[in-house]
Each structure stands twice: as C-alpha cells, then as structure tokens.
C-alpha cells in the first residue's frame, strides 16, 4: 500500500530534505506533493487525495496552525493526519498544535530518525520496514 504525502514549508530546501528522508526511510510513498504555505496546501488538498500532511508552523500567507484549523472544518480533510515539523519547540506551542488536532510534532533541528519514527507511529511501520533495504538509520541521508 502506498500513500501520498503533502509537505508544507516555505523553505524549498527543507521540503527537499524531508522528502529525501521519507524516501530513504523506505515508506511506500505514491506521490510527494509540496506547498510553500497553508493556502497553497489547501488548494492541493481540495484537488488531490493526500494521506498525510507534514507542515511547518511559521510561514507567510497562512501558517501551519491556521492550516490545521481550516482542514478540521472540512469534512474530507479533517481525518488526514497532520505532523508539525517546526522550529517552535515550546511546550505551549506543542500543546496548542495537539489541541488543534495535530497527530505528531517534530522540532527542527531533527534527525532523520525523528521523522521516520513519527511517520511510522501514524501510518504504521509496515511500509517502512518491508520496503527498506537494511539500513535502519535512515539510509544514506
């Protein structure tokens, strides 16, 4: 089974890194989709089937918290798991995100393993383990 991933971050380099980590971790990803802010993300979500969203918090136009709020208002989007990948590491922000309905929280700077573990716990380890070719530390990242 493969799943579609939407990565939302105003830094294209950060999107590339997260994508690379997920790729080398061996998850069965069908399609990687990318957005530079919450507004772009909502446009993609309205148009494409997405199984999980990884989003930054501080972004122009619409931040990651606002994105979750908008997603929870929508009948189809509300069940999509959202993982925050952010520099905001205070307990208060984490709690705020979880209260809004985030499924996971990874703070930057992160290790590849942090992303992998969070995705495994949400999407199930099956894909990560079955398709991975031996290196449990995140491949050649």
């Amino acid at each position, binding site marked *: 089974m493969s799943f579609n991933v939407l990565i939302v971050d105003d*830094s294209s380099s*950060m999107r590339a890194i997260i994508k690379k980590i997920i790729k080398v971790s061996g998850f069965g990803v069908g399609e990687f989709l990318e957005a530079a802010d919450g507004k772009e993300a909502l446009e993609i979500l309205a148009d494409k089937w997405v199984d999980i969203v990884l989003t930054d918090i*501080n*972004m122009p136009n619409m931040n990651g918290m606002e994105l979750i709020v908008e997603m929870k208002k929508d009948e189809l989007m509300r069940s999509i798991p959202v993982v925050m990948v952010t*520099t905001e590491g*205070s307990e208060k922000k984490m709690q705020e995100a979880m209260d809004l309905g985030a499924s996971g929280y990874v703070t930057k700077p992160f290790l590849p393993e942090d992303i992998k573990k969070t995705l495994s716990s949400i999407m199930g380890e099956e894909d990560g383990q079955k398709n991975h070719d031996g290196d449990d530390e995140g491949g050649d990242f």
Partner: protein
Amino acid sequence: MDKKTMMETMKVAISNVMETMFFQPVQINDKNCTLQEWFSDKESLLGAKLNFTGPSSGSCYFLIPAKLVSEITANFLGLEKDETNEGQRRDTIKEALNMIGGHMFSLCDNEGAISLGIPELIEEKNIKSYRLGEIKGETVFIETEDSHLAAGVITEMK
C-alpha cells in the same frame, strides 16, 4: 529573559543546528572582538535576519561567508558544492537562522511567549565590511574547521 541567558542559549542552538542539519562541527570563540575585526573586508558575506516579538522583542541575525554557504548548502541538500544554485544557498541561510532562532527560544522560552517572524535575507549593501559596525547587538563568534561565521541578537528595549 536576560541577555546573558539568551546568548548562552544561542551558543547551544548554533552548535546543535550546525552539527545536526549541516554536518558542520563548530566551536564558539569567546574572544571579545567586533564584526569588522571578525570578518576580513575582502570576504563576501551573506546574511539573514529574523524578527521576534513578545516579552522581549528584536531580531536575530546570521552572517556567513559566501564560500561557507555553498558548503553548508551542499551538506544540507546532499549535493556537491558546485551543484548548489543561488536560490538554494539563499534558502539555506534563511532556514539556518530560522532553526537557530527557533531552537534558541524553545530552549529558553518554554512558555512560548515569543513569536517568531519569517526569516529574511539582509540586503548585501548592509553587510559590506564598512557597515558591519552599524549592527548593534550581542554577537556570538563561531569557527568551523576552515572558516568562520557570526550570529547575534539585537533586542529592543520596551
């Protein structure tokens, strides 16, 4: 939040970010000098700033020689130095500062009272050697194996 705590936390944040995300071991240099003394006037520098607001307001800044930017961008993206483009290099500087600032405040502001802005590049003309003296704030001087950089905080008094 006092300045001393903020600057000590910034040192930890810089080390963690540079080593974890950019595979760049760093050493904090505690010598008392100015930015003009730290950077040669022949060096081409790039820089970014990140505003913050809350109980303390101001901005964090990050100054780095262009040559080192290529190196950390390549490390970050898993590319060769000559494969990186200007957009990626600019993005890397902003993201580096974003992570340093965010990590710093998450270590010293557990209440989450500080709000971070969006990192911006500093205009090149403002980081020419002769203008470095105009940057007023607390600075951390950092050495890498074969280069050096600086980061700091400018706080506004309320």
